[in-house]
């Protein structure tokens, strides 16, 4: 007598499960406790185990099929035993009574899990992991033909330019999750840069002949193209301003233990500058803009990206709605993103939708520089190192902690005056950080 294997009820709310894969083949001997199938609920993937030892006689559903709980999905039994006579539509004994009414009603209809299709259509669908239930057939009686599957494949294949596809293959990026910005959502080269954390193993050193030669490709090439494109299309103007950071130094010293206690992270100047920039951007909507073909987009969100150096390149994770975050949360977020970036674990959405970027070289002996705008954003803030300098205040020389800010902006849509107003406002905020409370 064959034993039924049923779709298990793995949670109180579980009503159906999807067979992800059959782990045992028909005809295979399985021991009690062996995994027969992988089943996915709305929450988790679990294995269905054999309750007795026997031969897997028959599986009733293809992989990818969704089956109600307690419904029979396979039979175990002795070798050579036939289960063809068993009406597998009926539920297991404990459920049989309850299910009888619905089973009777279902019988006149075709099994919705088994659509009419030709063997060639089934084979092609299997090879491409397509659920045939999603395809409508053009053959007699709605039969799915091979060309129906082919058409479905053409329509549903992710559109990508040949260049972007090559880059994706070179970098080993799975571009299925990348949002395309080209026509009809086609993925273009630029989409890959914003979505891809670098991976140093992709640069293969060429044979060394005195000098090291590395193929110019992959993320390096993408960065290069993006920089050239930005530098060539956006007329860059860079304003610099020296900021007295003395109050910020004090603020940091006082907040350090407080924030460490809340978030476990050490507050750095980076986050204070982040906070001040986001705060100032919010009050200067004419800086928080993008040029989109014929329209200037005024962003409602203040999403601030931070340039992070990684082996072999540079990525820009984005802190979403940075203006709405307190310093503790901001510190935690910046540290987490920085860590993920260096580990190459950034998700595509963590690098998208930036509206402004900060490039902080303060840890180096850099005073000021001319950063290149991270398109399609329109401005970028370069941060120099903080160092103590003699400064004249009210006719007296005193020693203050000074830092240079460099703001590059796209002169096509931002003029000098608003940019100057922004950097002036930012300077005042940093010099009087209590303004951040307002």
């Amino acid at each position, binding site marked *: 007598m064959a034993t039924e294997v049923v779709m298990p009820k793995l949670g109180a709310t579980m009503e159906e499960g999807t067979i992800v894969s059959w782990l045992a083949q028909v005809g295979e001997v399985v021991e009690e406790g062996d995994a027969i199938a992988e089943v996915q609920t709305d929450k988790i993937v679990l294995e269905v185990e054999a309750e007795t030892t026997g031969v897997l006689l028959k599986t009733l559903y293809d992989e990818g099929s969704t089956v109600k709980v307690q419904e029979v999905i396979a039979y175990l039994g002795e070798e050579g035993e036939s289960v063809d006579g068993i009406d597998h539509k009926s539920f297991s004994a404990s459920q049989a009574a309850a299910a009888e009414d619905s089973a009777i009603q279902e019988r006149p209809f075709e099994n919705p899990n088994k659509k009419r299709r030709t*063997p*060639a*259509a089934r084979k092609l669908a299997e090879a491409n992991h397509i659920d045939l239930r999603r395809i409508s057939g*053009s053959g*007699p009686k709605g039969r799915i*033909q*091979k060309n129906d599957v082919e058409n479905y494949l053409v329509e549903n294949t992710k559109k990508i330019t040949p260049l972007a596809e090559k880059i994706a293959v070179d970098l080993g990026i799975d571009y299925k999750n990348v949002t395309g910005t080209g026509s009809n959502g086609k993925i273009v080269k630029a989409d890959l840069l914003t979505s891809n954390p670098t991976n140093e193993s992709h640069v293969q050193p060429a044979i060394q002949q005195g000098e090291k030669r590395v193929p110019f490709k992959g993320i390096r090439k993408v960065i290069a193209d993006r920089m050239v494109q930005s530098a060539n299309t956006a007329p860059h103007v860079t304003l610099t301003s020296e900021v007295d950071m003395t109050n910020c130094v004090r603020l940091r010293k006082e907040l350090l233990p407080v924030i460490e206690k809340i978030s476990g992270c050490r507050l750095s100047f980076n986050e204070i500058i982040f906070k001040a920039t986001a705060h100032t951007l919010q009050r200067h909507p004419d800086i928080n803009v993008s040029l989109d073909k014929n329209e200037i987009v005024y962003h409602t969100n203040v999403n601030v990206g931070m340039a992070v150096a990684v082996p072999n390149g540079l990525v820009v994770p984005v802190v979403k709605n940075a203006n709405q975050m307190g310093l503790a949360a901001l510190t935690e977020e910046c540290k987490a993103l920085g860590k993920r970036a260096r580990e190459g674990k950034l998700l595509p959405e963590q690098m998208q939708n930036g509206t402004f970027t900060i490039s902080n070289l303060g840890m180096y002996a850099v005073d000021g520089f001319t950063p290149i705008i991270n398109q399609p954003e329109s401005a970028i803030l370069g941060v120099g190192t903080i160092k103590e300098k003699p400064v004249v205040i009210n006719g007296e020389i005193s020693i203050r902690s000074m830092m240079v800010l460099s703001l590059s902006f796209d002169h096509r849509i931002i003029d000098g005056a608003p940019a100057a107003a922004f950097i002036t406002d930012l300077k005042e905020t940093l010099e009087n950080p209590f303004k951040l409370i307002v």
Partner: protein
Amino acid sequence: MREITYSEAIREAMSQEMRNNQDVFIMGEDIGVYGGAFGLTNGMIEEFGPERVRITPISEAAISGCAVGAAMTGMRPILEIQFSDFIMIAMDNIVNQAAKNRYMFGGKAKVPVVVRLPGGSGAGFAAQHSQSLEAWMTHVPGLKVVQPSNAYDAKGLMKAAIKDDNPVLFYEHKMLYPVKGEVPEEEYEIPLGKADIKKSGTDISIVATGIMVNRAMEAAAELENEGINVEVIDPRTLVPLDTETILESVKKTSRVLVVYEAVKRGGYGAEIASMIAESDAFDYLDAPIRRLGGVAAPIPYNPELEKAAVPQVNDIIKECRKLMNK
């Protein structure tokens, strides 16, 4: 190249083998001066004499027993049954003796006999002289069954049949006898069990036997104008069957039409269709395997009804359109 008829090609094959091998001889009703019912053996008695062109009484039971006995004692007889329909009378000798003896004598005896069987409809010979019963023979282990569709194949297959040490049933089609084709004068053999792709195509594989190969070729030319590209396969021998050529074609085209003149029910086309369905080519099918065969009725005497009883060019065209969902 020289063109000769289907019947001349068969005669040439027999004559060449009779010149090559003294053991080969022909026997049958009226095959001497009269040249056989279809004139196929014309002139052979003049060349080979009555010892090797043996005119027999009208008794298929007797003459088939003679042929099987002669084969077992070392000769290589070619027996003409005037109409393939009459093989019923010879059935015991062929099925119980010819097909079994090599096996039952553990290989010490062999039965190298060729039985020539003019078959098929279209000549107005009515129900007892127009049948296509080759499927009965394919059912019997120990018999080989050949069904040439043109003059070139007929000559090459006949020579292979004569040289084979097993009983070979050689089904000729009466309506093909006068059809000419290019046939080289020199000797050549076509091995039994090798199908021929008469026309290659991409959309549908038509597996046709006997005269249906010719009709399938006509249909294919018509369908070409409609943009349907048909591949025509002639198995040439039903037993042994070249499954590989058929299955490769099915994998390529994804659609199959099996066309045969015999009654569709239980005909050899059913075997071909089953063979395809069981094979790994199944996964490539993009439509059900279709068969086109004769209707389950005796062949009528009325010429119009006779045509309606077996597949014609138009029937093949219609069936192909259906297969393409057109």
